[in-house]
């Protein structure tokens, strides 16, 4: 059996009090609960404070470029779909720089769990507006206040037919752990948007701000996350009440179950056929 200790690795470089610590803890606990060994797990991360998370874990890691975690993770999963592949990054990384990749990862429904640390601000570059920052917030790049409508990842993912869409909150570690476990177990692409206070640069969306607003969707006994209309309505809730949990879930065969080459096992284990190749060359003989 694996334990939390198996995933311990190195010192962190985050600010004291950062929500990232809580997310790291939830990630570790989810991996332990699923009894995954470090060698079976691949994390692909982008650039930002969130992108550093896998460095503080023991696991396979490809820490790539800002915004580009999903295409790298897609390549990894296609090459070896026996691996448990997670992508991780922040709101700037995933919803700004990498927005196009998110759209198409959802369409592919490839079996990757994507955790987005959504602190509604840029941390690594020191406090600029992010795609999810609130209207009116003044930041270094928006001295007169933000005039753009915030990006709603949950609503977008549902509208694109994502098969697993959830929202967690870093301060609710056991709840977040459950979402990450469910996301990994889900067959298909899983988006987990994680609300996370930035103690250094976001003076608006603080622990107190979130604590007052968040609630668990399962407490709403009428809500069915498998009903797309109800899920979409739920995705638009923001302000005084912010729903946490699995907002939408549906069934659609993941990418790797649909491709001929992947149906019979991972790509990396396929031996090339000399006979087939010779025949293929012969097809060009006039």
């Amino acid at each position, binding site marked *: 059996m694996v334990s939390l200790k198996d995933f311990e690795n*190195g010192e962190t470089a985050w600010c004291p009090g950062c929500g990232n610590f809580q997310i790291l803890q939830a990630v570790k606990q989810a991996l332990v609960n699923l009894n995954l060994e470090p060698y079976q797990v691949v994390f692909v991360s982008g650039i930002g404070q969130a992108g550093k998370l896998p460095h503080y874990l023991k696991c396979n890691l490809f820490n790539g470029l800002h915004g580009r975690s999903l*295409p790298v993770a897609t*390549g990894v999963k296609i090459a070896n779909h026996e691996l448990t592949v997670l992508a991780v990054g922040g709101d700037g990384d995933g919803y700004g720089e990498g927005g196009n990749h998110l759209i198409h990862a959802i369409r592919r429904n490839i079996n990757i769990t994507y955790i987005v640390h959504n602190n509604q601000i840029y941390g690594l570059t020191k406090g600029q507006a992010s795609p999810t920052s609130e209207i009116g917030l003044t930041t270094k790049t928006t001295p007169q206040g933000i005039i753009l409508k915030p990006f709603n990842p949950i609503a977008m993912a549902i509208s694109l037919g994502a098969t697993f869409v959830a929202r967690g909150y870093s301060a609710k570690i056991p709840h977040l752990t459950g979402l990450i476990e469910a996301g990994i177990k889900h067959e298909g692409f899983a988006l987990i948007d994680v609300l996370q206070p930035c103690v250094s640069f976001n003076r608006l969306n603080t622990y107190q701000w979130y604590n007052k607003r968040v609630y668990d969707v399962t407490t709403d006994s009428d809500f069915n996350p498998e009903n797309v209309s109800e899920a979409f309505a739920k995705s638009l809730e923001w302000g005084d009440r912010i729903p946490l949990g699995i907002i939408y879930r549906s069934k659609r065969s993941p990418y790797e179950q649909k491709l001929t080459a992947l149906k019979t096992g991972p790509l990396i284990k396929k031996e090339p056929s000399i006979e087939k190749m010779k025949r293929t060359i012969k097809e060009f003989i006039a």
Partner: protein
Amino acid sequence: MKIDLDFVFLIGGEAGQGIQSTGQILSATIAKNGFHVFADQDFESRIRGGHNFFRIRTSDKPVQAISEKLDCIIALNAETITLHKTELKTNGLLIHDSKSAPKISEEINSFAVPFEKLAVEEAGNRIMRNTVALGAVIAVVQLDLSTLESVLKTSFGSKGENVVKNNLSAAHAGYKYAKENYEKNFVKPFNSKQTEPKMLLSGVEAVALGALASDCKFMSGYPMTPSSGILHYFAGKSGDMNVVFEHAEDEIAALNMAIGASYAGVRAMTATSGGGFSLMVEALSLAGMTETPVVIVLGQRPGPATGLPTRTEQGELNFALHAGHGMFPRAVFAPSNAEESFYLTAKAFNLADEYQIPVIILTDQYLSDSYETTEEFVLSKVKIKRGEIVSQEELEKVGKYEYLRHKITSSGVSPRVFPGTPNAVVVTDSDEHTEEGHITESADVRNKMVEKRLNKLEGLRKEISPPKTFGLEDASTVLVSWGSTFGTLKEAVELLNSQGKNVRMIHFSEIWPFPAKAFIKQVKDFKELIVVESNPTGQMADVITGETGLKVGKKVLRFDGRPLTPRYIIDKISVEA
């Protein structure tokens, strides 16, 4: 140099008239008779209308250049006649639709055939006018109708019996009409059947085939002329060959996906053109930093920006050599022809794996879209070298989770492990990283890592084959070319020397790391260096000067988007001489 058979066809018409398929079928029919074929394509960036042509040069000897002078025009519309009649040799052949009655000189041997009428009457669809034309051509040049029939069956087989049947009827109708009306004017350029049939394929097909032969299991890409054909061929084979092609959302994703797949252990590549490569540049640097092997095909076309999307240029040499932020080793190849496109792709995969670097293959529209006959590729010549990979026993000695992905070694190459291997985690980072692969700011580690990565160049340099030489060995005038210009310059050199000039050529297919020592040895007592390139400034000339200190005297350049020809080169040299 005397060529016994040197016969050039041009098939012209609008986009949408099937110019390319007509050209391919005629090329295949001639190749099936054992003759050599070299065919280039000139088309506009549009789906319907405009003017496109497909030029087929045939010979009983290997041929790898085009000739502007035509022996036979197959005009699917009237405009083709207007645009190309001056290129026709004296007594050349013109096969055209009866409804376009051109005013032409008596020196042209003209054959009016009701392409469209016969297509409607005999095959039930005017779209098959090009097949009627093919039947007529085969009759006029007295090739076997049965060979055309068998090529038509292969070409249209996948479209169903009816399509095959109608195409055969169309071909028969054209053949019969020509025979009944013009038999006394027929010519016989093709002597008896030559050697065994050869391979006939395009540059893009040769690259994709080379990738499959190299056990490339994953290709990602975003369509862009002139490299889309690589994606199409690979994707088409994915079911049969157990490989995966992924149509990425953009070129940024394409290269990042290939890097992800390669990190996870399978050989991966992507193919694009200049604009797409611009988007890939960031990830190119990522491959350099994370030491992830990857092969990128950069099919050149004239820029800047969208440029001339369907035409040719060799304008991205500097871009390929210098693209990417930061410094990291790379290899850059530029295959000369279809055969080299196959074998150099295989070499690109080996060097990528052995040195854990990105390798760029520079092609261009001319090479990509040209069809040529070539000897059958020999699969046993493709050796798959995956580079240093840590075995299970070695890993056990290292200790549980103690494997270092970026271990400092004297060669700069750190043996690889693929994720999913028990007792090892594979860690890499686009940030500067430790031997383990974790982010670091240490000045000492930084110095060691920079040196480690760049140290790979030393071994890599030894892998590069010397440039190819051709012509009179002691000639003091040296012509220099690279990439797809090989066959064209070779023919120009043969012609110049046959006219009593004294020239030789040195040709680069493996450009980077630049084989400076080999080149200096090859040029030895030269008097004049002349570069021949398809770009406006002579990028190779600058590379030569930069890497060897040697001065280039003259530059024969072409940048109108059209391919260099032997005649163009000879004219430029003579004018300036």
